């Protein structure tokens, strides 16, 4: 009996674990860059995009003491660490909307699960990077 129970639990854990993001994933969309030069805030669209729908985010870039960072160049990369593939598109920061706020266009998530968005920031204050985790849940089925 106990062996069967253990076997069942193991199998279930395996099934549930296939697509599960790590439990300790930092899902914050606002945090300091890797070397602390900037505070980066990611703003997703107000209406959650569907899977496979191209959409835009805004990136707010401030210095550690809260001043907007102007004229930054921001490169975007990312992907799904658990699936070994990158982003389906090449998002680009196309313009600075207002001082320190940048428009990132061309973002797309081709499936549900854990995605990384990696930013490489180059601005007068120096180069730095920031990584954000996003978990895309099944949409259109929320009950």
């Amino acid at each position, binding site marked *: *009996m106990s062996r*069967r*129970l253990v076997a*069942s*639990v193991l199998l*279930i*854990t*395996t*099934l*549930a*674990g*296939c*697509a*599960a*993001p790590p*439990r300790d*994933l*930092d*899902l*914050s*969309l*606002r945090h300091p860059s890797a070397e602390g030069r900037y505070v980066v*805030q990611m703003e*997703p669209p*107000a*209406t*959650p*995009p*569907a*899977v*496979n729908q*191209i959409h835009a985010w805004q990136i707010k870039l401030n210095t550690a003491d809260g001043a907007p960072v102007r004229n930054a160049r921001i490169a975007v990369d990312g992907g799904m*660490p*658990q*699936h*070994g*593939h*990158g*982003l*389906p*598109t*090449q998002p680009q920061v196309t313009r600075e909307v207002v001082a320190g706020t940048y428009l990132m*266009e*061309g973002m*797309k998530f*081709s*499936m*549900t699960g854990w995605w990384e968005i990696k930013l490489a920031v180059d601005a007068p204050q120096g180069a730095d990077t920031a990584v*954000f*985790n*996003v*978990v*895309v*849940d*099944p*949409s*259109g*089925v*929320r*009950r």
Partner: protein
Amino acid sequence: MTAPGHAGADAEAARAPAAGRIFGSGRGYAAVTRVLVVVSALALLTGFSWTEAWNADDKAVLASMALEKLPALAPDPSNVVADVPAAAVLGKRLFTEVRFSRNQAVSCATCHAPDLQFQDGLPVGKGVGTGSRRTMPIAGSAHSPWLFWDGRKDSLWSQALGPLEDAVEHGSNRTRIAKLAQARYRAEFDALFGPMPELAPLPDDAGPLGTAAERAAWQGMDPGRRKDVNRVFANLGKVIAAYERTLAPGESRFDRYVRAVVAGDREGQQVLAPHEIRGLRLFLGKGQCATCHNGPLFTDQHFHNTGVPPRDPANPDHGRAVATAKVQRDEFNCLGAFSDAPPEACQELRFMATDDAAQLGAFRTPSLRNVAQRAPYMHAGQFANLEEVVAHYAKSPPAAVGHSELAHGTGGHAERMPIRLSASETRDVAAFLESLSGAVVESPAPPRH
């Protein structure tokens, strides 16, 4: 390809804009596992088989794959006649027009046979010659941002132009095709696009992709006349696309099963046999099939290298890696002179990934709708049946070109779990795929947005 936003996530986004889980409620997997453990323990006590029960997350995933979740077809701003009924009617006629081919015997329907799920059942297509890739089905393809196995076209209408000039498909050339369209279908084209320019004085055989003589004749033409021909040629693709947009996959046993699961209708769930349900669970779980084959069309519309052996090992197909440059320089792409779209509507092309090493040897994830009805499989018909396909994933061999995304213990991605399926599990997954068949539906009216 799931339906646009849902109120629950909207509300959550409003409450917690700084949370990374942007698309849903974010219920923890740990909680799910705890529930499963309890269910499993109860199953042992009661004799109930847990394998037949779906938890809430499973049900959500299942529901997301039902055909009824397929969103309405998005407009194609690059094709002004995409949803014009008269264009679809003309496109249907042109789809079977053999006079556009060099040997007067090949039409779109030669390879995309309407009575064979719009494919041909052959490992590689056969037009006036023999191609190098498997003919792709058409139903539902209007939902794809990229066409062909390598995605070298960014619209249905641009895709439809490729075979006409391909040496082994229709094998024709651009002026011959445009002049034939004018001679045989002028009134219909004029009604859709306005008066055609006069093409009769132009060379009979000229085009940028044909024989040396045809290319020379094309170069000898006035640029304005070349543009006239290109315009008629593009419009031909646009009416064929209008017809193709009316073709959609129909309801399958899987869709009826999902409806029964969501409704808690045990009797209705018998539409799938136990071994098919086992296969479905494997498809979603340790088979990892739904990693790429997800949503109502069972595709993420993306490109993946899964180590499928090349048809010609001496000349392996590089797939997506060499297609991005082709679509960028294609004069019939969304940003080109013959597209009806403003540049801002061409986001897929503008933000196309181009420098990703994973694109080497990668091919588009095909829809699995009706997959059981279109052997052989993969981009060049490498596998004869679905069991061979599933067995390939269970084996996960290294790729001949590029790197397979599948974990195989010899350089795969450490964070991805290897796919391990026994022979009977492989058979079950293949059996489940049989449940995805349904009749192709041709909409009498244009798609509604």
